[in-house]
C-alpha cells in the first residue's frame, strides 16, 4: 500500500517537473517581442472593442497609435478627449481637443405622421428591407424601423420607440462610435456635435422628394420650402435636393428656423425652455419690418442724395 503511494507521488512529481520544463522551453522559444507601450495604451482605452475608431478593437488601436508618428488620424470616440490625452501622454504626443458628438436620428416619420401603404413580411432587418424595396411608407428616404441600429449599438444607447416606430438615442449612453450610422442603410443617423449643454438644432428629415410628394408621404417631412434658410441670419442652413440641412458649426441656436418650419421637421433639443413659436415669429417679423424700414430710409436717403 505504502509502496503504491510512494510510486504515485514520485511519478506525478517527475511528470510535473518534465512538463514544466517543456512549457518553459516553449514559452522561451515562441515568445513574441512586443512594444510594452501597446499594453500601456490598451490599459487606458475603454475596452469596448466597438470599432468606432476604425480599428478592429482597442488593442489594434493601441498598436497603431504606438507605431504612428502622431495621433492626428486616430480618435477614440468612446473615450473622448480624456482617453486621447492619456494616450498622448504615454506616447509623448499632443492632441487637440475635439467637440464631443452624439448620434442624431434624422427622421421624424412617426407611425401617425407617415402612414403605412403596404405590409412588410420579411426578416426584421433594415438592410434586407432596403435591398428589397423603398419601404412600407410613401417615403423612400425615411427610417425603416427594423432596428438594425439598435442591434449595432454596443452601449445600449438606442431603443425602438414602439409608439413612433423610430429609434431613440439615450444621450447619456451614446459614445458616438458611429456603429449605428454604418448600420443604417438609409443613412438617417448622423453624428453631430453635442452642443453647449446638449442644446442643438437639426433637420429631422432626409426626404428628397418635391414638396407635395414628400408631404403626402409624411406629415412631418421637410418639403424643401426654404423658409428656414431665408429666416436664418447666420447662414447656417442650406437647401439641397428639396431638403434643408443645418451646419452645426454655424448654428447659433436662435431657434428661429424651428419656429418658421411649416411641418415641424426642424428639431431643437435640450433647450431649457419650450419654444414660444409666436414670440419668435413676432421677433422675426419685427426684424424684417425694421430691415424694410431701414432699407426704405436708405432708399429715400439715396434719392435725396441723388436728387
Amino acid at each position, binding site marked *: 500500500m505504502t509502496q503504491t503511494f510512494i510510486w504515485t507521488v514520485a511519478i506525478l512529481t517527475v511528470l510535473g517537473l518534465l512538463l514544466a520544463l517543456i512549457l518553459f522551453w516553449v514559452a522561451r522559444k515562441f515568445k513574441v517581442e512586443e512594444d510594452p507601450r501597446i499594453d500601456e495604451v490598451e490599459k487606458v482605452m475603454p475596452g469596448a472593442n466597438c470599432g468606432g475608431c476604425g480599428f478592429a478593437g482597442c488593442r489594434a488601436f493601441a498598436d497603431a497609435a504606438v507605431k504612428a508618428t502622431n495621433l492626428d488620424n486616430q480618435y477614440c470616440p468612446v473615450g473622448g478627449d480624456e482617453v486621447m490625452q492619456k494616450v498622448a501622454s504615454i506616447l509623448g504626443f499632443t492632441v487637440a481637443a475635439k467637440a464631443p458628438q452624439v448620434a442624431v436620428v434624422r427622421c421624424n416619420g412617426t407611425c401617425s405622421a407617415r402612414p403605412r*401603404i403596404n*405590409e*412588410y*413580411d*420579411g*426578416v426584421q432587418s433594415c438592410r*434586407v428591407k432596403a435591398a*428589397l424595396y423603398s419601404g*412600407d411608407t410613401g417615403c423612400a428616404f425615411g427610417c425603416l424601423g427594423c432596428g438594425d441600429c439598435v442591434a449595432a449599438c454596443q452601449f445600449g444607447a438606442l431603443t425602438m420607440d414602439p409608439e413612433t416606430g423610430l429609434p431613440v438615442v439615450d444621450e447619456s449612453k451614446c459614445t458616438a462610435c458611429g456603429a449605428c450610422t454604418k448600420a443604417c442603410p438609409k443613412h438617417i443617423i448622423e453624428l453631430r456635435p453635442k452642443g453647449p449643454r446638449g442644446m442643438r438644432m437639426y433637420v429631422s428629415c432626409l426626404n428628397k422628394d418635391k414638396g407635395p410628394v414628400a408631404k403626402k408621404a409624411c406629415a412631418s417631412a421637410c418639403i424643401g420650402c426654404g423658409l428656414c434658410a431665408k429666416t436664418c441670419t447666420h447662414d447656417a442652413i442650406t437647401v439641397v435636393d428639396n431638403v434643408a440641412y443645418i451646419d452645426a458649426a454655424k448654428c447659433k441656436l436662435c431657434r428661429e428656423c424651428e419656429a418658421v418650419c411649416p411641418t415641424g421637421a426642424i428639431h431643437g433639443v435640450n433647450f431649457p425652455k419650450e419654444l414660444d413659436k409666436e414670440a419668435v415669429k413676432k421677433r422675426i417679423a419685427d426684424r424684417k419690418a425694421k430691415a424694410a424700414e431701414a432699407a426704405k430710409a436708405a432708399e429715400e436717403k439715396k434719392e435725396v442724395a441723388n436728387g
Partner: protein
Amino acid sequence: MDKKYIVSPSPHIHADVSTTKIMRDVIIALCPAILVSILAYGWAELLVLLVSVASCVLLEWAVTRWMLKRPSTVGDLSAVVTGLLLAMNLPSSIPLWIVFVGAVVSICVAKLPFGGIGQNVFNPAITGRVFLLVSFPAQMTDWTPTAGFLSVPDAVSGATPLGVLKETLKSGGTISQFMETNGYTWSSFFFDLGASAGELSAGALLLGFIYLLVRRVVKPWIPLSILGTMAIIAAIFSGINPDAYTGVAFNLLTGGALLGALFMATDYVTSPMSNLGGIIYGIGIGVIVMMIRYFGSYPEGMSFAILLMNCAVPLLNMWFHQKKYGRA
C-alpha cells in the same frame, strides 16, 4: 392601392412542412412499437409512457414560461418525442418517480440549458436514460414482467437478455449454454425478446422507421452505418470464437440496438448534417456499442455510444460538407 398588400423577399410560397409536423411523424412512427409494448406489458407500461410524456411536456412548458421567460416550445411536440423515447428505454416495472427524475434530466439538464430545441449537444432522452442507468442500476436493468394484455410466449423474467448473457459469460458459461437455459431460439428474437418497451419488437420499430423513410423525415445512412458496423464486428468476433462472442442477428435484434440506431441516433439536432458525416458518426456508434457489449462491464452500450458520438458531431459538421455545384 387602398388595401395594404404584403411585401416580402422571395420566395413567396412555402412547403407544407413544419417542426411540429416532423415531430408528429416521429410520434406516428413510434406508435407500432408503443402498441406492442402496451400489449405485452399492460397498464404498467402505459403508465410509464404517460408519466414520462406528461413530465417532459410540463417541465418544458414550465421552464420556458417561468424560468426562461420566452414563448413556450411545447407546441412543436419535441418534448412529447423526448418523453416517448425516454419511456421506451425504461423497464415497465420501474417506479414512476424514477421516470420523473429521468424527465427532469432530459428536459432540464440536457435540453433547455443549452437553449432548447435545436441547440442541445446531447440527445435528451438518452441523457435521461443514462443518468437513470448510472443512478438506479438495479431498477433499470432488473425487471419483473408486468401483466400484459397478451401473453408473450417467450417472456423471460429477472433480467434483460443482454444482462443474463453477461452473467452467464462471467460465470464461465458459453453462449450455447445461455441459449439453452433460457429457452431462446434465434427466430424468437424478432418479435418478443427484450426488456424495455423500445427493445421489445424489432418488427414494429422497423415498420415505424420505414414510415419515416417514406415521409422523408430521415435518411437511412446513419442507421445503416450503425447496424452495418455492428454486423461486421459481430461477424468477425463470433466467427473467431462463437462461444465467447454473440452473433450478428443477436446483436442487431437485442437490447437498444434498433431503437437507438433507428430513432435515437437519427435525432436531427444531435447528429451530423452531411451524409458522409452521418456515416462516420454511425460507424463510431457501431464500434463503441460492440466494444462495450463485448469487453465492457455494462451489458448494453447503445446509449453510451450515442452520447459519446454526440460529442463528435460539431467536429464532424466542421469537417464534412456536402458536395457543392461546380466545385471539385
